[in-house]
């Protein structure tokens, strides 16, 4: 049981003290997370409790009447009646104010805030940064620009002409907010978010190399389920850290097994990914500049010292020697079953043989201890109770600390990453190093994003909903700042080249229409069939499993988890329901529903899809091979072929003008200007074909950039 639920109990007490209904308290996370889907989200209350208004006084006797918005450590954020927000240091206020803030903090955390209000607060903090930089916010997006950007950022693809015109024709107020809600709840959202997480979590179809490689299908589908059911980030991460079991049966064990046999590399990734703690150097020696020592790193690693990933009990060799089954069969069947996480009775971590510092001897046992970023952390509830070193509890203690709302970096790290996803740049960069948040151009904004993340209890969709509703997000894009320019103050998002998956998924939208969101790859069943649910399988268990596989007629097709698709591609029978169409060797399913990652020669990889070996390595750099593909490759053939959706729809047009308009809407998400319409029309008269026009629009920079 996670100790977080304690906070819910204490919260209830404070609420009743202030006469507020207990129903507003934060529900137990696990049950809430499992149930919560966007559709079931409780209706937001229109206003915040009046109790948040207070006259604040500092030691010098200055006063300010303002509404308390958030409490973040020793800082509070308040807003005056005129709408200005201020960040105040609690230690400089009178004791009564401190008590007020302390009592109000859990209520604030438990009280829903209307999304517009949250978005406005965010805009105010960005605005403060803009003022400091002497920059104006960019102008607002037009409706068509908004739709295209939102589809790409939230649904991962461009809108179809029908989706765009449907929105433009809608005359009801608040339609932007409605579209945000619709897209956050769409299949497309799940696809693109999986792509995003896959780069961050280094999700690959095969973990390990060569003969020891194990398919990660059960884990992948678990990740997809977490996204689809909107489980909250802290719960997801907690499960990844603490899960036990086999790759053939338990999804979240995939996180630790991603680096099977390399637990130190795994930890290094965990700390940079989830906390922005830049400790890669400390794995081998004290960090040259940051304060991390190699001892710090090993003390953290000790939380995984009693975690076994290799399943030592299995006597594979004796099974192989028995001679009843051949080595290959045993490896193929047992490999995935042996990939498992379990807890050992003792913490085996010792300092490395080349440990060269005076504070410990090489080979000495390491006691687990959490890293801290500042002296204040000692009082932070995330750090209590300190680990007793009980091997059975080590990983749980680490996971509780890691995902604790008060962990000094956990909320900030994911908030900053999501900000980068939507704006093209983090509030602090790189997102994998938040060791000194003051390095950020706008530390108040980063602190606010972290507190918002906590307030929404790590509900990532809710967090994005707030950002998407802000004026800052809905502002015109800025060109890429020059390398020597001053820090970016976020007058709007950056102009970005689409990510590889956005380009691929958009091209598919043109080729097969919005239906492309429906194709769902389901490969976990293939792995689950191989599962031998006993602790220490004997030859008898293996023989029985083989017999049952053959009986199901799967023995051959399953091929013990070896891939059977042509050229390493996914197979049609791996899709749920109707399989996606194919075109010249390409499977026309979204990037999330193909091999992970796509093979190296694939369109996706050419456009910068990560190899999934190193975290955060998606690239949006250009290159000649990309241009060759866009000009002469299969993908442009698919788009310009008479069977593509965009070509079929265009053929239905009643006039050449309508046809031109249809193509502009489909590719660029806008209508042509009068000049463009006239000039394109005259080209058509001179013999330009529809497929030429498709090729032209596909090859514009306007198509592959997100404005």
């Amino acid at each position: 049981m996670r100790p977080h639920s304690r906070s819910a109990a204490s919260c209830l007490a404070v609420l009743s003290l202030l006469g507020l209904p207990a129903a507003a308290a934060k529900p137990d996370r696990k049950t809430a997370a499992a149930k919560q889907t966007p559709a079931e989200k409780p209706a937001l209350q229109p206003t915040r409790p009046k109790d948040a208004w207070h006259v604040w006084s500092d030691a010098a006797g200055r006063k300010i009447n303002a509404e308390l918005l958030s409490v973040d450590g020793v800082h509070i954020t308040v807003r005056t009646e005129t709408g200005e927000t201020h960040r105040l240091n609690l230690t400089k206020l009178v004791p009564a104010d401190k008590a007020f803030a302390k009592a109000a903090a859990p209520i604030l955390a438990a009280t829903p805030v209307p999304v517009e209000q949250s978005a406005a607060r965010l805009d105010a903090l960005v605005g403060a940064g803009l003022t400091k930089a002497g920059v104006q916010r960019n102008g607002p997006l037009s409706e068509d620009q908004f739709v295209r950007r939102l589809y790409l950022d939230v649904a991962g693809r461009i809108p179809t002409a029908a989706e765009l015109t449907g929105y433009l024709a809608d005359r009801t107020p608040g339609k932007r907010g409605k579209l945000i809600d619709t897209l956050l709840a769409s299949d497309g959202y799940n696809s693109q978010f999986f792509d995003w997480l896959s780069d961050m979590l280094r999700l690959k179809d095969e973990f390990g190399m060569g003969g020891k490689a194990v398919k990660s299908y059960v884990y992948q589908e678990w990740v997809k389920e977490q996204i689809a059911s909107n489980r909250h980030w802290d719960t997801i991460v907690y499960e990844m850290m603490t899960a036990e079991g086999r790759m053939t049966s338990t999804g979240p064990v995939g996180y630790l097994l991603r680096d099977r046999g390399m637990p130190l590399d795994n930890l290094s990734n965990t700390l940079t990914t989830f906390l922005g703690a830049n400790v890669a150097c400390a794995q081998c020696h004290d960090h040259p500049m940051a304060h991390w020592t190699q001892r710090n790193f090993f003390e953290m690693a000790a939380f995984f010292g009693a975690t076994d990933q290799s399943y030592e009990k299995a006597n594979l060799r004796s099974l192989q020697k028995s001679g009843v089954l051949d080595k290959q069969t045993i490896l193929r069947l047992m490999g995935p079953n042996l990939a498992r996480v379990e807890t050992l009775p003792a913490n085996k971590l010792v300092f490395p043989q080349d440990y060269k510092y005076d504070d410990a001897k090489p080979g000495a046992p390491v006691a687990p201890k959490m890293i801290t970023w500042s002296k204040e952390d000692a009082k932070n509830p995330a750090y209590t109770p300190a680990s007793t070193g009980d091997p059975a509890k080590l990983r749980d203690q680490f996971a509780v600390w890691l995902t604790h709302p008060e962990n000094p970096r956990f909320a900030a790290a994911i908030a900053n990453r999501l900000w980068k996803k939507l704006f093209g740049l983090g509030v602090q960069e790189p997102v994998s190093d938040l060791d000194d948040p003051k390095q950020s151009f706008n530390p108040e904004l980063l602190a606010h994003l972290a507190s918002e993340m906590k307030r929404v209890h790590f509900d990532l969709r809710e967090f994005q909903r707030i950002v998407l509703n802000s004026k800052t997000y809905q502002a015109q894009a800025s060109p890429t700042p020059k390398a020597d320019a001053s820090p970016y103050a976020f007058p709007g998002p950056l102009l970005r080249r689409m990510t590889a998956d956005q380009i691929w998924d958009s091209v598919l939208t043109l080729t097969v229409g919005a239906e492309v969101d429906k194709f769902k790859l389901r490969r976990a069943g293939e792995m689950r069939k191989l599962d031998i649910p006993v602790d220490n399988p004997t030859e008898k268990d293996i023989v029985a499993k083989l017999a049952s596989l053959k009986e199901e007629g799967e023995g051959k097709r399953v091929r013990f988890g070896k891939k059977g698709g042509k050229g390493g591609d996914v197979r049609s029978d791996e899709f749920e329901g109707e399989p996606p169409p194919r075109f010249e060797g390409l499977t026309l399913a979204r990037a999330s529903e193909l091999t992970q990652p796509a093979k190296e020669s694939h369109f996706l990889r050419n456009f910068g899809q990560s190899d999934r070996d190193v975290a955060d390595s998606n690239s949006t750099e250009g290159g000649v091979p990309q241009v060759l593909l866009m000009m002469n490759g299969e993908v442009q053939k698919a788009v310009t072929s008479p069977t593509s959706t965009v070509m079929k729809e265009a053929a239905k047009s009643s006039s050449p003008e309508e046809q031109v308009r249809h193509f502009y809407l489909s590719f660029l998400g806008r209508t042509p200007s009068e000049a463009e319409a006239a000039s394109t029309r005259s080209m058509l008269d001179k013999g330009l074909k529809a497929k030429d026009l498709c090729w032209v629009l596909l090859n514009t920079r306007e198509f592959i950039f997100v404005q």
Partner: protein
Amino acid sequence: MKDPFHKLSPLSRRLFLERCAASALGVTLAPSVGSLAHAAAATSVQGAATATPSGPGFGSAKRIIFIQLRGGMSHIDTFDPKSGPSKGPKGAISTKAGFQISEFLPNIAKVSDRICVIRSMSAKVGVHATATYLMRTGYEPRGTIRHPMLGAWGQHYLGPSHETLPSSVSVNHNSDNGNGFFPATYTPLPIIDPDAGLQYSVPYAGMKTVEERLSLVREVDAAFQQRFPDENIAAYNDFYDATVRLMKSTELRAFDLKHESEATKSAYGDSQLGRGCLLARRLVESGVRFVEVGNGGWDMHNNLSDAMESTGATFDRVYAALINDLQSRGMLDSTLVVVATEFGRKPEYTGSGRGHYPTVFSTVLAGAGIKRGFVHGASDAVGAKVEKDAVSIGELHATIGWAAGYPLDQVVTAPNGRPFSVGNKSKPVSGVFA
């Protein structure tokens, strides 16, 4: 500060990448800069890199062909034959260079006076994928970084090797992100089928149609581009221009084996390795600096004898043809040909083959600045361990880097803040240079 890249803003980081990314597919985007100054500006330099290194063989290799025999070449059945208990299905033959090689390699025996065999390679990794990675990058795989292959290092230190052609190409073999932590544009261009040449380089709609369409692209794009004076958009404009130049250029002939004489084609033979090595020669001749050629079939656990008669015989023919071809064109003195593999195979001949064996194995160097008709190092009587002058994979990489003129003492700080160098700080093997 020791580590300037570590604390740079993301935009400066991008500047780093841009400076690295002076080219893609060899197409220069930025004005070309003096290569060493360029490298020094883009990286943090640790150690005394100011003096240009010199010594026998430094910079002698203007181009490199790196043949990677996948699966693990048995040293005993190729370049390090044994007569004792570990002897394989065939014996040894004498060569004109004075040393012996396996009877399986009669053609290579005839060019033995032009090659240098290293019989004392030694590593610890006996797993295919890990060992392949190690041999291609000089580093063991880590969960936190991707290491570059030798061609990408070359592009970093020396700049692009040609105006339109790529600086590195990977034939018969995916490059597996051979750019490592360098920009994606350093990725070796993959040519999976040597007969098919450069994929997508032929506009199936015709060049005239392509140019008409492109003029319309510029028209449609004009307003957008005016609104966003953006360096990334400008880079794409340059990539489009470069692609059109490439599609129209005669340089594409470098990828087309049709321009080879029948005599040359038949010397290399009609195998994938033969086509690959012939393409490699055409490419380095045309200005590509680094070409890797992959060749599978060397994992001879079983039927080693048959496999050597086929895979081994093909290699024998092709390698000898390549050395002769380079020699007759006067290119061998400035071209380094490397025969690399994952590991050797066990001295014990069990069943009909041998298991993986990294403890001692052989590689072969030939050409640029390398001693001819020479054997460096030795294994013991049965080929079970190094007896003399052990060479690590890092040292092999440093040796290749030295021959290619890479400043080995320049440490590059990757964007993750970690320092890396060609061959992981190993020293080149000076004994192999003439």
